[in-house]
C-alpha cells in the first residue's frame, strides 16, 4: 500500500490528486449532464452521446487549430455544431421511436454510433490531433501548496458555472417548468396547448450541445482520436447511473465521485482504476438502481 503512504505522508501530492479529481470530474460533468438531461425528458439512453463528445473534440481541432480562430470560439462552435447534428437526427430518426420500447431506442442510438464513427474517419482521418491550451492558460498557477495547470483550474470553475446555468434554467424559468412537466405527463401538457415536440427537440439539442462543449473543453488534454467515443460513453454511463438518470445534481455528484475514485484509485492500486469505477457502479446499481438522486421507475 505504497500509494496510501504517499497520500498521507505528502499533503501536496494528495492535494494534486484532489485537483486532478475535481478538474476531471468537472469535465465529465458537462458531458454527463447532457446525457442525463436527455434521459430525464426523452427517456432515451443515448449511446451516441460519446460520439457527440468526439465530434466536439474534433470540431475544436478544426476551428482552433486548422482554421486558427482561437480556442474559445471553437468551444462555442462545437456546441452549435452538435446542436445542429442533434436537430437533424431528432427530426429524421428519434421522434419515430419515442413510443417504442427502450431496446429499439438503445439500438437506434447504437446505429448512430456506428455511422457517425465512420463519418468522423471520413471527415478527420485516423490521425491523433493535438489542440493547444487557450492563450494565457498554458502555464500553471500558484494554489498555495503547489503550482497547478491553469487550464484545469479554469475547468474547475466552468463546471459549477454550467451547473448553475442549467439549474437556473430548469428551476427558475417557464421553459424549465414546461420541461419538467413533460417528464411527468406528456399528454396532459399537450392538451393544455403546449407544443411538446418542441420541448423534446429543445432538450435533445441542449443535451447534445453539452456533449460537444465537453468534447471541445477536453481536447487540449484528451486528444481527438478515432474510437475515443466508445470509451467515454461507458464512463458517462457510470456517472449518470451513480448519480441517478435524469438528475442534474446527480450527474454533478456522480462526476465528482467518479473523478475521485479514478484518480485516488490509480494512486492506491496503480493501473486498476477502471475496475474500481465499474465496481462502484455495480454497488450503486445493487443498492439503489435508480442512483443517488434518481427516482424509481414507475409501473
Amino acid at each position: 500500500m505504497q500509494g496510501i503512504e504517499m497520500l498521507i505522508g505528502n499533503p501536496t501530492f494528495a492535494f494534486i490528486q484532489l485537483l486532478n479529481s475535481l478538474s476531471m470530474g468537472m469535465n465529465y460533468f458537462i458531458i454527463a449532464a447532457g446525457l442525463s438531461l436527455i434521459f430525464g425528458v426523452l427517456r432515451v439512453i443515448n449511446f451516441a452521446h460519446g460520439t457527440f463528445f468526439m465530434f466536439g473534440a474534433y470540431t475544436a481541432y478544426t476551428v482552433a487549430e486548422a482554421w486558427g480562430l482561437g480556442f474559445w470560439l471553437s468551444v462555442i462552435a462545437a456546441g452549435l455544431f452538435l446542436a445542429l447534428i442533434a436537430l437533424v437526427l431528432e427530426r429524421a430518426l428519434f421522434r419515430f421511436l419515442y413510443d417504442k420500447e427502450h431496446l429499439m431506442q438503445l439500438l437506434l442510438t447504437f446505429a448512430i454510433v456506428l455511422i457517425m464513427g465512420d463519418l468522423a474517419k471520413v471527415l478527420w482521418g485516423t490521425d491523433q490531433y493535438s489542440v493547444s491550451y487557450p492563450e494565457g492558460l498554458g502555464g500553471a498557477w500558484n494554489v498555495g501548496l503547489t503550482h497547478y495547470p491553469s487550464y484545469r483550474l479554469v475547468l474547475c470553475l466552468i463546471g459549477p458555472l454550467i451547473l448553475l446555468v442549467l439549474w437556473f434554467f430548469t428551476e427558475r424559468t417557464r421553459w424549465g417548468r414546461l420541461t419538467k412537466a413533460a417528464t411527468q405527463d406528456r399528454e396532459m401538457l399537450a392538451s393544455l396547448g403546449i407544443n411538446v415536440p418542441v420541448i423534446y427537440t429543445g432538450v435533445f439539442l441542449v443535451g447534445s450541445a453539452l456533449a460537444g462543449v465537453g468534447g471541445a473543453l477536453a481536447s487540449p488534454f484528451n486528444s481527438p482520436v478515432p474510437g475515443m467515443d466508445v470509451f467515454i460513453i461507458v464512463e458517462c454511463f457510470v456517472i449518470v447511473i451513480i448519480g441517478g438518470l435524469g438528475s442534474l445534481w446527480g450527474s454533478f455528484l456522480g462526476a465528482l465521485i467518479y473523478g475521485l475514485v479514478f484518480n485516488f484509485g490509480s494512486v492506491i492500486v496503480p493501473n486498476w482504476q477502471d475496475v474500481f469505477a465499474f465496481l462502484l457502479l455495480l454497488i450503486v446499481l445493487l443498492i439503489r438502481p435508480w442512483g443517488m438522486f434518481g427516482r424509481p421507475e414507475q409501473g
Partner: protein
Amino acid sequence: MTSPMNKAGQAACLLIVLLIAAIPFAGEDYLIDLATEILVFVLFALSLNVLIGYSGNVSFGHAAYFAIGGYANAILLTTYGWPLIAAMPIAIVLSMLAAMFVAWFCTRLTDIYFAMLTLAFAMLVWAIAFKWRDVTHGDDGFVGVAVPAFLDDRVSFFYFTLAVVTASAALLWLICHSAFGKVLVAVRENRTRAGFVGVNTRQMRWTAFVVAGTFAGIAGAIFAMYNRGMYVENAFWTQSAQVLIMVLLGGMHSFFGPAIGAAVLYLLERFTNEYTEYWPTMLGAILLVILLFLPEGLAGLAAKVRSKLVRPGGTG
C-alpha cells in the same frame, strides 16, 4: 414434457447439417474457415436468444461470457498446458458460474436497468481482461493458444466445431421447447400474470440467463482455439451489441432466426470488408432497416412472404 419437432423439421435439420458437413469436400480452405467462424457465431447468437427471445430480457453484456469461456480455455490450454478434455469443460463451467453470479444480481432489475447492469458487469470483465496483464496479456491480446494436435488442421477443427455447435443447438432447442421454455415465454409476455399462477419469475429469468451464459462460453471456448487467441475487444460492449444485432436481424421470436441472422451478418461483414473499410456504416444501416422496417427480423419477413404466397393478393 417436450414437444418433439415434426418429421419434416427433423429431416430439414439433418439435411442442413449434412450439407454443412459436406463443405470440406469443396476443397477450399477459405470456405472451411468461413464456415467454422459462422458456426461459432451461430451458437453465440442462439445462446443470447434464450435470454432475449424467450425470457424477454435484453442483455447488453453477453460478450462477457463468450470472453470468459474463451480466455479460460486459452489460458488453461496454453499457460497451464491442460489437455482439451479438461480445459474446455472447466472453461465452460467458469462461464456458467460467472453467469450464475451475475444473473443473481441482474434479475433483481428489469428493462433498462437490467440492460445497464449486464453492461456494467461485462465492462468489469473487460476491465479485468485489460488490466490483469500477467494472466490475460492485457491489450496485447492472449496470442499463440496451444491447440491440441488432433485439431491442428482446419478440416478436423471444422468437424469438431460442427459437432459441438450441432449438439449445443439441439440441446438449446430442447430447452426452449420444454415446459421450462414455455414458462419462459409466459414470463416474457406477462410477468405479473405468470407470477400470479405460481411461477417463480425471478428464478425462471435467472435460469435463462445461466443457460445463455453457459452456451456463450462454449462458443467463446471454440473461438479462442479457432482464432489462436483472445483479445480484450472480444469482451467490449461493442461485441455484445454485435451479437444482439445478429439476434435482431434473424428475428428474436423464432428459434432458428438468430442462427440465420448470425450467418447473414457475418457473411456481409466479410464481403464488405473486402471492398471497403466502412463496415460499421453498413452495420448501422442494417440496424436502422431492422428497427424501422423489420421488427421481427428475417424470420418475420419470411413468414410474411410465405403467408402472401399461400393466399396471393388476399382475394386471389
